[in-house]
């Protein structure tokens, strides 16, 4: 017969625990509260009337494409302030397959130094 107990077990992480079922119950309770609060809202609100039209301080509404914030503009401040980081990262991604192979050689050389020469050095000391 199907046992329910294993499904409800708390997830033990070694030094902590986590029970997603309780979390889901909490989310459902929060949603119920939100629905109840929404019920107290203004019932005079009419859809598809002047109440729903955008008011841009009397300015004309832009084209739909212009109203949408483009992907490149999101986090603009963040990417602009760390421009030097992103520029160097972009520079690293040349798209040239010879460079891809070069990175492989570099990593192999570093691993060689760490795993072989490093251990021999520690052994000698």
């Amino acid at each position: 017969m199907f046992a329910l107990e294993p499904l409800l077990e708390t997830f033990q992480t070694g030094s902590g625990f986590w029970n997603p079922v309780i979390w889901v119950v909490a989310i459902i309770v929060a949603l119920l509260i939100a629905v109840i609060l929404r019920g107290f809202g203004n019932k005079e609100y009419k859809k598809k009337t002047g109440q729903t039209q955008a008011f841009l301080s009397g300015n004309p509404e832009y084209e739909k494409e212009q109203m949408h914030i483009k992907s490149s503009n999101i986090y603009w401040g963040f990417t602009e302030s760390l421009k030097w980081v992103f520029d160097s990262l972009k520079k690293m991604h040349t798209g040239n397959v010879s460079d891809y192979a070069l990175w492989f050689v570099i990593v192999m050389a570093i691993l060689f130094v760490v795993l072989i020469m490093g251990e021999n050095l520690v052994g000698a000391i």
Partner: protein
Amino acid sequence: MNVADLIALLLQHSPALIVAVPLLGAFITPLISRLNDKVRNVFVILTLGLTASLVFLLASDVFTGNIHTYIFGSQDLALPVVRILFEVDAMSAFMAIISVILSLVAVIYSWSFMKENTGLDKYYTLILLMTAGMLGMELTGDLFNFFVFLEITSISSAALVAFWTNKAKSVEAGFKYIVISTIGALFILFSIALFYGQYNALNMAMIASAIQYTFLDKIALVLLIAALAMKAGVVPMHMWLPDAYGKAPSSITLILVGATQASLYGVFRVCFTIYGGAINLSSISIGWILVILGIITMLLGVAMAIIQTDFKRLIAFGAVAEIGYILLGIGTGLVVMLNPEMTTTGLAAMKGGIFHIMNDALDVGLLFLVAGAIYYATKETSLNKLGGLARNMRYTTVFFIIGLLAISGMPPMNGFASKLLIYESTYQLNPILSIIAILSSIMILAVFVKVFHSAFLGPALPKFENVKEVPKSMLIAMGTIATIIIIFGLFPELIVNNIVEPAANALINYGDYVREVIPSFTGGV
């Protein structure tokens, strides 16, 4: 013969059948294509469905602690004849489950997604070959055989990445993929030669039992880690990955995620099993190498993702970042494994890393399918040109939200459970590692919130007025992965106890793997 006998017989031969069924299916597919497209599609789905059933049958037995060996050739191991040996422990079965689920979902998705394309007999043949290759890599106990399956996977993957031959960038991505794969495979072959020259053996268990950790063994270790890490998309050798993931059809990208993880499995098999005997000498060095590579992979992956404007390329960099978490978890496990005071931490880290392999495949896979659905509906992948699609594509939007929450490690999704294990265990090793991992997760959330806003929110754009929801087969494929994500998220203890922990123990207790082939072997943790 009754049903129990039949199941026992299938179980006995399942390691061979799991590879043989898709391989045979691959060669039959072009013939069946002559009959009818629908018959061919059904045949491919049934072939992978049968393979999946065999994988689950084998896994159900292996997860109880058994190890299955299957010998092609002489059964007497003492005889010096050519033979190939498949050896399946819980880690192999765990990886095989991931590969077969991804392949099965990909062919269901392809039914509608690739409908308008020509050359689909080749497409499905290559998918089955690729699946056979991945499963072979995961089930084999022979290092040279691993190389052969790696090549089968790489060649079929490269052809599939370049499947849209009318697009120059797809062909370029396929070319880059095959160049990188060949370089990696050559170095793997060289390391196999080093083993064969020293120990006269190609079997992983035999090499593991004989390994002396000589200078040549160290060179072989460097070559294997570097080559397989490149195939797994570890930074800074990841650059082929956004090209290939970004330009392949989305259904193929889903299977490519599995192929990448099969290479990652190779890294773990090498570090834990082949070099298991030398682990006392080098586990801390190898562990720290994996931890550092993991941190760099995480940070660079997420930093590059944040500045992308192409949907699929952005997800590809997100996938790179997720590989970092896997390396961080497994690396932490290796570093603390030999410290008797930190065995619980080590096991938790290993469980976190291994659980995240599956979660990463599901989360990233779902997001790629969503990207494919958007491309199917709009013929657009630039985030700067998308917008307001939530109105027209409601189910796809819901699947994207599930994928977004899961990849960002938001509770109660599956990504949270595995990341929690990784955060807690790495905190015990060094709190800074844990802080970086959490910071990366927050940035991944920011990246995908950007995608959500760019593609799904905003005003309804006139050019997408006639966009409709994608066909049912694509919704079923996305829905299947989304359902697994939710189940894994809600019942992590069940998954970890029954699937992940046996896989972690299989890696740690490498002696059991060796003893299955060489009973006299006395080593092992």
